[in-house]
């Protein structure tokens, strides 16, 4: 069985040194492959946190463009607050762990929106998460021992995609270090965009506030509050939301005319992100 998903605690954390090494290797490899950190880069991994369509359960979905899952063993880790789930990917078998009463896990390949993607989906029982608590949700993807990338808030994903320097640093570290390490460069990038697109009267102040809001990089999730990645707030992220428009507005295209953005279709049964997989 290709899947070795398990629920782990913080003990699963990779050492910072190892991450640094894998980040450097990943950067170099990404540039060689021509996909990393450029405006022409193909789709990035995406992370979703939303309520299950027909229950109060929480669904966390990680979607990785299929061409990013190499022959080297690929491992995905999803972090929800202090909890971590890990799964091996890449053998294209549609598999899942046997259900337990609290968490369902799926990994498999399928179409998400217009993209063929490798997906990891967790469905957490409503009892697993405290309604009033706020969870930081993020994921990291390791390709063998050579590359590491991570994904959280789509605003940060957009920044990383378009700035090579930021990408180099970002993928090496974990959210716990984001504020200390990334704040200066993120603020500088946002301020430049804010100035270019005349978003704010004071671009630097705007950038400082936005950087503070999006770092550390994770999708914030408060189960007991209204969910949505929207102009009214960012609490979770639903696959069918027009996230790119909100990201564009916040990062410099505040006057972008409304453009219909391709959104994902959400299916009404587990694993929700992709259609009717045959589960083995």
């Amino acid at each position, binding site marked *: 069985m290709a899947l070795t998903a398990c629920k782990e605690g913080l003990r699963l954390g990779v050492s910072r040194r190892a991450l640094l090494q894998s980040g450097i290797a990943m950067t170099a490899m990404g540039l060689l492959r021509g996909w990393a950190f450029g405006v022409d880069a193909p789709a990035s991994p995406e992370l979703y946190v939303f309520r299950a369509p027909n229950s109060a359960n929480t669904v966390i979905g990680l979607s990785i463009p299929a061409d990013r899952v190499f022959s080297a063993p690929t491992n995905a880790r999803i972090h929800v607050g202090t909890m971590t789930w890990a799964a091996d990917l890449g053998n294209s078998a549609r598999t899942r762990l046997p259900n337990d009463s609290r968490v369902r896990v799926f990994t498999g390949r399928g179409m998400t929106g217009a993209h063929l993607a490798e997906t990891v989906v967790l469905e957490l029982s409503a009892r697993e998460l405290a309604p009033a608590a706020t969870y930081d949700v993020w994921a990291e993807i390791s390709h063998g021992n050579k590359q590491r990338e991570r994904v959280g808030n789509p605003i940060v994903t957009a920044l990383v995609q378009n700035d090579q320097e930021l990408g180099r640093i970002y993928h090496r570290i974990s959210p716990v270090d984001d504020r200390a390490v990334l704040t200066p460069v993120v603020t500088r990038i946002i301020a430049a965009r804010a100035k270019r697109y005349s978003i704010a009267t004071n671009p630097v102040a*705007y950038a400082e506030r936005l950087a503070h809001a999006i770092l550390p990089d994770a999708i914030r999730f408060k189960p007991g509050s209204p*969910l949505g990645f*929207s102009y009214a*707030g960012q609490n979770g992220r*639903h696959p069918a939301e027009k996230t790119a428009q*909100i990201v564009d507005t916040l990062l410099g295209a505040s006057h*972008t005319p409304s453009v219909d953005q391709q959104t994902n279709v959400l299916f009404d049964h587990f694993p929700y992100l992709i259609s009717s997989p045959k589960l083995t």
Partner: protein
Amino acid sequence: MSHHFDTPTAREDPRINLCDLYLFEGSPGHTVMAMTVNPDAGLSSPETFRDEGLYAFRFDLNGDAREELTFKVRFGAVEHSNGDEHRHIQHFEVRQAVGADARKGAEGAVLATGETGGGVRDNGISVFAGLAPDLFAGDAAALRAFNTTLAKENRFDAEVWKNRKNFFAKRNVTAIVIELPTQMIGRGRIHAWATVSLYGHAPEVQVSRWGLPLITNVLIPDQDVREIYNRTGPAEDREKLGSVLSQFTARVSGLAGSTPNPAEYGQQVADRLCPIMLPYELGSQAAFDFAGFNGRALGDDVMDVMITLASNVALSDGVAPDRTRIRPDFPYFGPAFSAEEQAGIPPALKRSSAAERRP
């Protein structure tokens, strides 16, 4: 039309129509609060303040949605200045009230006195009251068309925003601007709102409120509910206005197809806006924009933020405040538009006969 002419009461007497509130850092260590009334002053509205009016800047300092500190401004009767019947002045008095006095009545310690049209500076406190350029910008015709299509055809029409005309360009308001040492307000994050009440010959009655931009003209289509908003305080907002805001934004976002769950989006908006107050981290750079609400600077383009929030669609009316009319120092509002500059601009609203008789 932040809150310009938003209710029958406002149209009947624009002197008590609270249009906008601004809150930002002024000179070092000082905070500026400014409110505007009399939309389209001089053309559709008087240029004076109502002498039974109690104009108040209210501050919630502890997060309970009730005011612990209020700065109250009252005006005397209109007089002719130096015998010139075309030039009107009013004496004013600014008071600072805390505790129970902050919530009701005209009591408080006198901070400053002066007369309209000129600035007063004393003990680090500066006050201006008088005619000023309207720094709000918005396409009123587009908003009217948007709301009409919504109400009559139950349809979301983003095309109306291509009109791109600032209805408020070269129009005036009357402004009350107070700049004072920030420590007189407090420290850290506070919440502010402004009210106008009638006070004097009858029991005090609040008739206008401003907590966030465009709450009435964008988010509350029902005239009766607008009056409820204007006559209540932030502590009652969740109960009295929460469902109104959530239902309206759920409807608009649903028609726009901008969210997979309109009801939840509506609830998210209501949670974001209620209690309806302007948050501000004292001493920080004020900005009301897509990244958040932190006070409001004179040049902030609030219309785009609020119509986008109402629909969850990136909308823009294509116009921005006239920042050339902002001064870098007190009173921060530049000179009002002169009659020559306003040549050819029609009144925004036909005056009622009662308003017409006022100076």
